[in-house]
């Protein structure tokens, strides 16, 4: 089942001005439910822009974008917010965590915006145990190591049980050992049925995915790496 479909998608910044940047040029992409995709490209190639559009953070300039068969273009801000909350989980390079808050409060951030009254403690425990951060739950994020922080970010992305995890250079700030541990987590999540889109410039990590794409000057190519 196709979860994401992009047709002839363009993204321009500062359109019509002298400073116009053509970040994405005619992207056509299909991602099925359960896929583990990697998108590789050099800095400034447009890979993060593509990820933000898929994650409903940024808007496309032209083309069409279907998320689970629904056209994203006509959606209101509140519908997009609901989609980000319920269907998408984000993992960022620098983790995007609230430093002064505890691990638990960071993990629970997406639940603040969902209609679900309360998340079962058992579910929080399960996620944290699986990611090896159960004993850290009441510790402030600023006291954690990089690897631990990224696990917290992954736990946060999973709390609302989304269908798709978008990871933007998730190992960019980690050492090799921690990078592989994080990758193992993504592999495990993919085995459990989650769709993973991993943006990286690390070819070794990208090879672990089962679908590979390369992005160059705003144009995407299916790659065999």
């Amino acid at each position, binding site marked *: 089942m196709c979860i994401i479909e992009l047709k002839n998608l363009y993204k321009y910044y500062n359109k019509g001005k002298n400073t116009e940047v053509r970040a994405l040029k005619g992207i056509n992409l299909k991602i099925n439910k359960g896929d583990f995709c990697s998108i590789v490209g050099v800095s400034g190639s447009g890979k*993060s*822009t593509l990820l*933000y559009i898929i*994650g409903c*953070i*940024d808007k496309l300039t032209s083309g069409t974008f279907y998320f689970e068969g629904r056209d994203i273009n006509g959606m209101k*801000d*509140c519908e*997009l*917010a*609901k989609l*980000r*909350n*319920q269907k998408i989980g*984000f993992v*960022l*390079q*620098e983790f*995007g*965590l*609230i430093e*002064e*808050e505890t691990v638990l409060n960071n993990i629970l*951030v*997406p639940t*603040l*915006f*969902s209609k679900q009254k309360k998340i079962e403690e058992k579910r929080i425990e399960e996620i944290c145990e699986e990611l090896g951060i159960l004993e850290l739950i009441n510790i402030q994020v600023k006291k954690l190591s990089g690897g631990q922080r990224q696990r917290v970010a992954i736990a*946060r992305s999973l709390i*609302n049980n989304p269908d798709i995890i978008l990871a*933007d*250079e998730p190992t960019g700030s980690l050492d090799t050992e921690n990078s592989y541990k994080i990758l193992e987590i993504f592999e495990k999540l993919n085995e459990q049925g989650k769709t993973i889109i991993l943006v990286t410039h690390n070819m070794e990590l990208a090879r672990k995915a089962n679908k590979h794409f390369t992005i160059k000057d705003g144009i995407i190519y299916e790659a065999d790496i």
Partner: protein
Amino acid sequence: MRKGLEIFYNFLKQDKLKNIIIILQIIISVFAVTFLLVPIIKNVETMAIINNSNIGENTILFSSNFNLLISPKTYFNENYNIIKKFINNIDGVSETGTVYLASTNKNDFNLFLYDKLVCNTIKLQIQEGRWFEKSDLESNKIIPIIISDNMKSEYHVGSTIEIEMPEYKTEEMKKIKCIVIGILKRGTYMYYGSSNHTDPSVSDLFSKLHLKERIAIIPNILDFEAEYAAKDGIIINCDISKLNNIYDKINLSGIGKINTLNMLKQNDSKNVILYNESQIYQFLIVYIFIIMSIGGYTILTSLNYKRLLTIYYICGLTWQKGLKYIILKNILLILIPTILSSIFSNIIVCYFKTIYTFNIKVVIITVLLYMSIAALASVLTIINLKKYKPSEFLKEVD
């Protein structure tokens, strides 16, 4: 609702130190604003009362000389009557009027007696019922009485009050039946009739009625000679063409000083305008500094929220809702300390400068002024944050 409060609390607890600095700035500046606003408001209110009174060309104010043997403390009937008789006998004087304070503590309020001329000239603000009319000023079996707002729970317009007054010569207490014809406006200005001999002014005659001060006013139409203390300001109704004669007679006698109320009123107006102008300039300078410090700091602090806002955005908050939380945070962070410190600083000002009484208008104006800073800071924050796209913030967060 609970989740909304939780999100709001998360916004509030970010940048604790900066928020504490904003609160401290508010507390300190509210004190400065209150010290400047209290006299301005008092002057404006006093002028309104003066302008409302029936002060005509032919009304003059006599301020007695404190250095005379007749000091205010000895201003009981005999001494006072000597002065009054002297003034009344001057060619051109048609009527004199004074305020008296009943010298007894038998009543559970301060009882003031107004001469007919005072009743006709000064009209205090009434919230219920009416002020004295001509028919009230003739000798009646039942005396009309006007009471302060804080006696409203015990009496209403139409109810009777029995007051006690000592008879001057026998010191025998006499009971007098009064009927309530009016209730003074809460916190209005009361005509006490005190006048400063060296520098007489109309505004000295009035003072804001303290909220806890229980007072009652009756016209001075008693059918016996009561014991009371007279106030040192006497208003005189005269033939204006004989003003020079009256002026000479009083000046030569050395008992006091006279000025036409109209002239004093104009002087007062000029002084009030001059005083208020200087106060307003000072106030504007202080206010500009406040806008720059509190407003600027609030904007800077709010811009720091873009990280939290972006994290919340990727987790499912809309950008608009996030901005609303920041505005709400700005408003509450400024509103609550402003209200509390404004009330507190008003109490402090009134405690140290007893000529002022607590005035809710000062609190309201202060709150409105600070709300305008919160609104300005919020608008500028939104303009700044709206220029950016969440994806740009995300690159910064990342």
